[in-house]
């Protein structure tokens, strides 16, 4: 090769930046990857729709969720009543919309409160380690070994069925998995090399907590919190089926579904609509949760 073919190029510092890609923050990256997942976007859209319907929907129907009209009880879906009527002549569409408010709020409140309690409890256990950790986790073990149902029923029996008390009952039972998760996260993160390195480099405990431990645990925490919402809605449906749901005439989806289940053969639509509502909402939350999980996994960076 003759030397003339090659042309000398000046080394320019700025050019090296063009080769790499644009820098993003961690969360921008997560959002970007979440967006790519079609199912989770679908989930987000559906949930937004459900939330809007829950908040605004009832204003648009000419019926209230408690107006009874015994003459038109158990009518199939029609142009006047899109979802039909229930056994007391109440419009089912309106009740499903109101049910959305109650079920969603149960889900969100249960999720938020378990997140707060769980993170605090697990965080403390993980951080302090040693004796404190062992005792705290033993307590969780004991509480966890008693069947869930016993708690819930005992609680509901003592506190009486009602919206407030369902919140309390569910929170009291669901904080444990979150606590365990957070504690496990913190414990394993503490041992990681880069944390040790940071410690050696002289970083303060506070800096380690805020800059390393919490941001890296947020992922699983968020996923668990998101997935607690459908679990709470599920549990509430189950409680309603055994008769411990909210008081009449308020109705959550669980109550509507359990009422519908007993008239399945006579009026199948009375089960179909609330069941579909539960199903679609849970599906969407699960899609979002899945998407979050994929998006937050550093190994899937592409």
């Amino acid at each position: 090769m003759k030397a003339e073919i090659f042309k000398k190029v000046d080394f320019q510092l700025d050019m090296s930046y063009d080769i790499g890609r644009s820098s993003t923050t961690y969360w921008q990256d997560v959002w970007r990857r979440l967006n790519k997942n079609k199912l989770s976007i679908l989930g987000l859209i559906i949930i937004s729709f459900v939330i809007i319907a829950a908040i605004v929907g009832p204003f648009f129907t000419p019926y209230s969720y408690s107006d009874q009209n015994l003459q038109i009880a158990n009518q199939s879906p029609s142009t006047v009543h899109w979802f039909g009527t229930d056994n007391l002549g109440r419009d089912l569409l309106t009740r499903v919309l109101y049910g959305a408010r109650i079920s969603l709020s149960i889900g969100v409140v249960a999720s938020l409160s378990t997140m707060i309690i769980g993170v605090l409890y697990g965080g403390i256990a993980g951080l302090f380690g040693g004796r404190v950790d062992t005792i705290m986790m033993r307590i969780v073990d004991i509480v966890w070994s008693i069947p869930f149902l016993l708690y819930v029923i005992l609680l509901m029996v003592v506190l009486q069925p009602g919206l407030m008390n369902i919140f309390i009952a569910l929170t009291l039972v669901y904080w444990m998995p979150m606590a365990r998760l957070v504690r496990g996260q913190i414990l394993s993160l503490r041992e990681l090399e880069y944390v040790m390195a940071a410690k050696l480099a002289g970083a303060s405990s506070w800096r380690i907590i805020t800059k390393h431990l919490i941001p890296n645990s947020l992922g699983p925490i968020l996923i668990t919190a998101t997935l607690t919402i459908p679990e709470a809605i599920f549990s509430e449906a189950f409680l309603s089926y055994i008769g411990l749901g909210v008081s009449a005439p308020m109705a959550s989806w669980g109550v509507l579904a359990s009422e519908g289940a007993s008239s399945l053969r006579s009026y199948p639509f009375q089960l179909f609509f609330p069941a579909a509502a539960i199903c679609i909402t849970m599906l969407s939350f699960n899609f979002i949760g899945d998407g979050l999980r994929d998006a937050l996994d550093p190994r899937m960076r592409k």
Partner: protein
Amino acid sequence: MLQYVSKRILSMVLVIYIVITATFLLMHSIPGGPFTTEKQLTPEVLRNINARYHLDDPLWKQYTDYMGNILRFDLGPSFKYQDRTVNNIIADGFPVSVQLGTFAVLLAVTVGISAGIFAALRHNRTLDYMIMSASTLGISIPSFILASFLIYFFAFKIKLFPAAMWNGFSYMILPGISLAALPMAVVARLTRSGMLEVLSQDFIRTARAKGVGKRAIVYRHALKNSLIPVVTYVGPMAAGILTGSFVVESIFNIPGLGRHFVTSIYNRDYTVILGITIFYSALIIIFNFLVDVAYVLLDPRISLEKKGDN
């Protein structure tokens, strides 16, 4: 190893003891007793009954008597079912729940793992999406709704299976599916994500590079490691299913322990509640222990002491 096992057993006994005490106190503190009935019992009758069952003893004495009996494996008489003891009730109900539960767990595990493997191998292609959507559906339908629909379609519309009762294998199918749907879905997802994670690791790449066949890779190298999260899940899940699902047992009229548990709470049948709670707790604790042992067998890198804290 021995030290670990004995430490675990000690802590299990301690946990069960606390569980018993807590449940005992909890139950005696809620309103209504086993003899709170709609047609009020006359005072004389009530006195006689309380005497017969020692409910007029001071609470601490009832407690110590009860604990003494437990050491002799005597869980006491049922207050509501006057001819039966708690031991009888558990002996009648548990085998039924085990039969149904085992069927459901096997169904969930075989179908779930297979589906998870298929999905992982066809990652991000149509089959993957289909399986993932089906599994998400499985997590999204409450069991009583699923059971109602199954009966409606497969016992009522198309008379393929009986609608309820417990008289043979065909009576197990619909309740089994109702119970297995959710765990099946979760197992599928866990297997899939576990597989995906393992398949992307270096040692797999090495094996591929060495020319090892795809099937061998999947079954011999990848599967064992990806099953750890599945095992973590299956342990407590099996314990939960074996202790009987109230909803499924009630809809299909299966004489299992789950149904008994819930009705005994409504009946305030103290001894039955306590007895079944102790039984369940022991089961859950033992299952957790077995799960930890399974970990070690599946992944020799995991040492028991570290895992033991979890």
